[in-house]
């Protein structure tokens, strides 16, 4: 029996506006509770909401970038439910007229381009935070502390259609969305800070059924790792139930990070009726053509556009994907250096491997200003022309990160220029063969992995000035 999982993801993105969605309170990052409050975000009697224009610009930019149709005459609705950290006991959200509908995001799954269809993109306000003492849940807490700093912070909710087929695809989608909001500069996009929070709707059905199975919502996944594990767990759980002809209950389940299982939340939400109605405190959200056009003008190069550009250099989809999700300066450095070297592979490897690794080791977040694409291409060219070994290239890079200097001059000053004179090398090869007779015999008997050992010996006796591939060629010829 073939089982088909279907996944839809709802993501909340916290915008990086200075002030909250409906009041002038600053959005703060602090451990001190209840520091940034006013009558509006505390739900005091008589206080009214006034929409944050910056947030509406941000969501419009996101919706446009996710290829959505924009609702020009939208509105805010009240979503009614009682919860102690929801000050008004309704959340200002959007219902049937969200800012964006019917969009899509391109993602790279392994080496393939896939499209994740987006159902809607809407604006809402965040709730406060509850800290339940005595237990993690409201029902069994001995006391609950409330912090309203987060209350009213602007959130964008992005809902996909039920089109995702695997946990890997789900992770890839979140990575893409995260990069998008970072590139658009509308959110910090930090998962560990809760800037992106996601719920997954998962159903499993027999392939022959031609319709979706019973939908189960999973909450409380706060990392990509837990998203992946929770989806895999849930697919397995539902598959097992179907195979043993048991009933799957439509419910909300909680991902237990420690036990790595989902468990039923027994929440009242299953039967929740949010009684949505348009918020009479807020006029309709009219997005004029002029407004939309102005937003369009400010949209930077999107991750998918970056990938298209990268692919033109000959990078594979996954390599392009990697660079499209790297920092802006790495992306630019690659393109500039590649242009100079015209060697995509070496440029990609040196930047994403050696350079990024060394910077990380040195605790540096950015390149020193003297480390230009010209200098980098100089190193790559020297390696490619067999003037220096890759090891020497690494050494030059290490020094270049610390000091401004010329890579070729450094190579000369430090005797890194390789001896490419075959006669000279042949002598060394011969010496190595003579002094390692036993090993040579074993290579001849088929122990090919010992070739590496011999090459190593050759390089050692040349003090690193022999190009390993030339050494290997000569060695094999001799044998």
């Amino acid at each position, binding site marked *: 029996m073939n089982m088909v999982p279907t996944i839809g993801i709802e993501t909340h993105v916290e915008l990086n506006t200075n002030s909250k969605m409906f009041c002038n309170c600053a959005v703060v990052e602090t451990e001190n509770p209840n520091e940034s409050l006013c*009558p509006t975000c*505390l*739900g*005091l*009697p*008589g*206080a*009214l*909401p*006034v*929409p944050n224009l910056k947030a509406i610009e941000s969501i419009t930019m996101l919706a446009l970038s996710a290829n959505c149709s924009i609702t020009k005459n939208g509105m805010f609705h*009240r979503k*009614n439910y*009682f919860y*102690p950290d929801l*000050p*008004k*006991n*309704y959340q200002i959200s959007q219902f049937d007229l969200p800012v964006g509908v019917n969009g899509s995001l391109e993602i790279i799954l392994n080496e393939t381009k896939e499209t994740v269809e987006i159902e809607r993109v809407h604006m809402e306000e965040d709730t406060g935070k509850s800290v339940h003492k005595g237990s993690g849940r*409201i*029902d069994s*807490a001995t006391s*609950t502390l*409330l912090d309203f700093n987060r209350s009213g912070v602007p959130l964008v909710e992005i809902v996909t259609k039920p089109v995702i087929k695997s946990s890997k695809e789900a992770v890839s989608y979140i990575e893409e969305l995260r990069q998008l909001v970072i590139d658009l500069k509308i959110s910090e996009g930090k998962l560990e800070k809760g800037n992106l929070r996601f719920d997954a709707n998962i159903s499993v059905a027999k392939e022959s059924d031609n319709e979706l199975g019973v939908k189960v919502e999973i909450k409380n996944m706060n990392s990509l790792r837990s998203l992946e594990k929770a989806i895999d767990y849930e697919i397995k759980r539902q598959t097992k139930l179907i195979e043993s002809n048991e009933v799957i209950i439509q419910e909300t389940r909680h991902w237990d990070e420690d036990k790595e299982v989902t468990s039923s939340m027994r929440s009242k939400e299953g039967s929740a*009726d949010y*009684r*949505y*109605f348009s918020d*009479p*405190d*807020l*006029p309709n959200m009219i997005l004029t053509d002029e407004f939309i056009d102005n937003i369009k003008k400010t949209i930077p190069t999107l991750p998918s556009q970056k990938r298209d550009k990268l692919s033109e250099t000959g990078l594979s989809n996954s390599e392009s994907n990697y660079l499209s999700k790297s920092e802006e300066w790495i992306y630019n450095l690659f393109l500039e250096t590649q242009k100079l070297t015209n060697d995509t592979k070496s440029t990609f490897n040196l930047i994403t491997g050696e350079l990024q690794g060394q910077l990380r080791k040195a605790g540096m977040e950015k390149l020193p200003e003297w480390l230009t694409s010209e200098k980098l291409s100089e190193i790559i060219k020297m390696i490619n022309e067999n003037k220096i070994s890759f090891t020497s290239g690494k050494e030059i890079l290490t020094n270049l990160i610390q000091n401004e200097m010329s890579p070729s001059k450094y190579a000369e000053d430090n005797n890194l220029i390789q001896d490419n004179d075959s006669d000279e090398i042949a002598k060394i090869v011969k010496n190595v063969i003579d002094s390692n007779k036993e090993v040579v015999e074993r290579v001849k008997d088929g122990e090919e992995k010992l070739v590496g050992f011999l090459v190593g010996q050759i390089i050692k006796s040349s003090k690193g000035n022999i190009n390993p591939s030339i050494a290997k060629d000569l060695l094999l010829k001799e044998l």
Partner: protein
Amino acid sequence: MNVSNLSISEISNLYKNKELKPSEVYEEVFTNASLSESIIHAHLKLFQDEATEASKLSDERYEKGNPLSDIDGIPIAIKDNINLKNHETTCSSKMLSNYVSPYDATVIKKLRNNGVIFTGKTNLDEFAMGSSTENSAFGPTKNPWNPEHVPGGSSGGSAAVVSVGSAVASLGSDTGGSIRQPASFCGVVGFKPTYGTVSRYGLVAFASSLDQIGPITNSVEDAKILYNSIKGHDPLDATSIKESLVEIPTDKNAKVGVVKELMEEGISDESRKEVEKTIKLLKENGNKVVEVSLPLTKMALSIYYLIAPAECSANLSRFDGVRYGIREAGSTSYEMMENTRAEGFGEEVKKRILLGTYALSAGYYDAYYGQALKARSAITKDFENIFKEVDYLISPTTPTPAFKFGEKTENPLEMYMSDLCTIPANLAGIPAISIPTGLSKQDMPLSIQLMSPARTDSSLLEFSESIEKLLSFNQRTSLLEDMK
């Protein structure tokens, strides 16, 4: 000097000419309040110390010849659903009986900047839901004309204090007639401005799309002065309008329509006769008066009792005992919230929350709330069309003069009927005013209502002033004289 017979502009001129001091006027209205409160219970709180001090500061400003405005030193009472910093805002509810507001409503800020003396907070039907103040958790207000009669509601306290002279003017709020109906019952002027011309920021919401703050005064001129000092766009209220007011004829060229449906069944002869009397005066004045029909007004009450409760069901959700107000213990957070709401809200409030919750529920929304919204826009359209033919509309303010206590508490539908003539203006968002016209056989005040197109507030007030002159009714309640 008997301040009660003076208008705001007369008082203001006496202040400027140094013939009268704000502290003297305040002292007189405070004396009136101390005398009348035991009978009519119109105030929930008197700010004696604070107001005395404010009046003395105002004295000094006039002394130096630099008052803050033309209403500097005018004692004004505030309905207790409007927030005044560092004072209780109870909304006449047990729920908020201990709630002290940390901020000023926009209208309060404006009045404060103009040097007004706040005399105290006035009684209302709990959360402004009612037509008699009988729904106040702190006991009803009595009508100063006859304490056996209700003062109307929900701004019953605000109307009664002006009527009896314990404030020169007051602010009320009007969701379905809550300014005009009590003004009518108490023989004073009540004005509900165009929706959005006065900021709602700081007014505890009952039904956000209908609520509007407005003045209750002794004369139309006073209403105009007070309205001009509280109106204007407010960046804190997203529904407040930026457009300026428009003008329509206010002289004998003004064309008046009599709303047929508001002169028919359900309207007492006494109320109807006041309209007829006014029509006669208008015609003599040279104004053209025609009968017009607004058939949908017959549905206004039904529409209102879907929209207002629906909005209130969400607006009043925030009262849960979590952050402020009273709190009733419970073994879980939810139980605490349930117990608090069960204890904190009165019967009428609960009834309307239930009604609204039901109207918004899945499966019922389309039939009830959705339908009501459609009908509301149809009524608004009807008004727009009728105002292409006439400049103003005239009707009674209330179907009957003030009724007696308990008379309608057993029959909520009859109670709701008392807002029959006032609700349409809230649904359409247009301005409307109640002007006293005379007394009933039982010596209770009678009135007429005038309505005009949206944003013609200034014209409506000007036209009303001329009608007020034609009517020349200026009788006051004799409650205080009887007591003295």
